[in-house]
């Protein structure tokens, strides 16, 4: 069979081969399609969806495949950024650290701080739920869970190292969220804020002051991230 025959010629070829039931063959046996592709010229007169799909796929070069993978990671990065909202997370975590530090400095009483924590969680949960619905996107539990688990692990390490667990936890969670969302500079800024606060606490500064410093750094990182997101 000659390659690329004309329309009528192709029909004649099929007739010459005993009127092969191309459609039925393709539907019943995918291998038949591959064999047809090898042995026959593929023509527009041959109506076979499976064969056409086979042709589309065989046209995929490594350049096209690499482009698809790049497109895929770009979409993934955008979806993660929308789901994790790293700038909002950094702003919220920074605010938590600053409020906690300020309260601890003003009135170092454990019961008050605990009440503030519980009140904050109770107040923030419905607000977060409403915001999530309005945003039109519900994040998979996997990503926030990973951020929280790593933050708790780092907080445990920082207790052993004599640093502030709150500073370590919020800085790690914020940095990881920014990193997963494809914002490495913001993640680095969050990490530097946390490390600075921890280093100052380790050198003898009051933990509350360390929280204020780290919280201010996280707020700055969050604002920078929000500006970057706003600017595209």
């Amino acid at each position, binding site marked *: 069979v000659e390659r690329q025959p004309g329309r009528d010629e192709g029909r004649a070829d099929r007739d010459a081969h005993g009127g092969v039931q191309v459609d039925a063959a393709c539907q019943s046996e995918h291998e038949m399609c591959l064999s047809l592709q090898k042995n026959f010229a593929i023509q527009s007169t041959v109506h076979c969806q499976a064969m056409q799909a086979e042709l589309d*796929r065989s046209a*995929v*070069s490594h350049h096209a495949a690499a482009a*698809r993978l790049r497109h895929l990671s770009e979409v993934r990065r955008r979806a993660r950024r929308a789901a994790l909202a790293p700038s909002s997370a950094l702003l919220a975590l920074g605010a938590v650290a600053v409020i906690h530090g300020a309260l601890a400095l003003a009135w170092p009483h454990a019961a008050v701080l605990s009440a503030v924590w519980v009140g904050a969680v109770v107040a923030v949960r419905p607000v977060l739920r409403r915001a999530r619905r309005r945003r039109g996107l*519900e994040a998979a539990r996997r990503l926030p869970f990973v951020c929280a688990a790593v933050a708790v692990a780092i907080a445990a390490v920082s207790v052993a190292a004599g640093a502030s667990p709150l500073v370590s936890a919020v800085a790690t969670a914020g940095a990881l969220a920014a990193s997963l969302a494809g914002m490495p500079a913001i993640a680095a800024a969050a990490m530097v804020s946390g490390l600075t606060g921890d280093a100052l606490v380790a050198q003898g500064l009051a933990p509350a002051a360390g929280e204020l410093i780290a919280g201010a750094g996280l707020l700055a990182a969050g604002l920078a991230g929000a500006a970057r997101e706003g600017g595209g």
Partner: protein
Amino acid sequence: MSHPTTRLDPAIHQPARLGILTAACEVKRIDFVSLRDLLDLTDGNLSRHLATLEGAGYIKIDKTFESRRPRTWIAATRAGRSALEREIAALREIVDAAAPARRAPARPRSAPA
């Protein structure tokens, strides 16, 4: 072993559908408007692709009313997640298969007699 191109899934190989399934797999669920904005697609285009993916069983479409306004939520099914993983593996294989060929030095020309 078959060539990786034969393992590409025609239902999700198209770039827009690949993007839709990727976005749906990254979140628990996403609404129509957010997905349209995320992928820079038109309403009609997105609807057509969603119908194809739903027909293949890769996404689940849930139409609800919230505050008397219709809202369409899209979520990836387990089959959709598996299909995306297979597609990514096949694409990576195609890219990797070409990598050694690109790295191989050019064959030296034979010296003229």
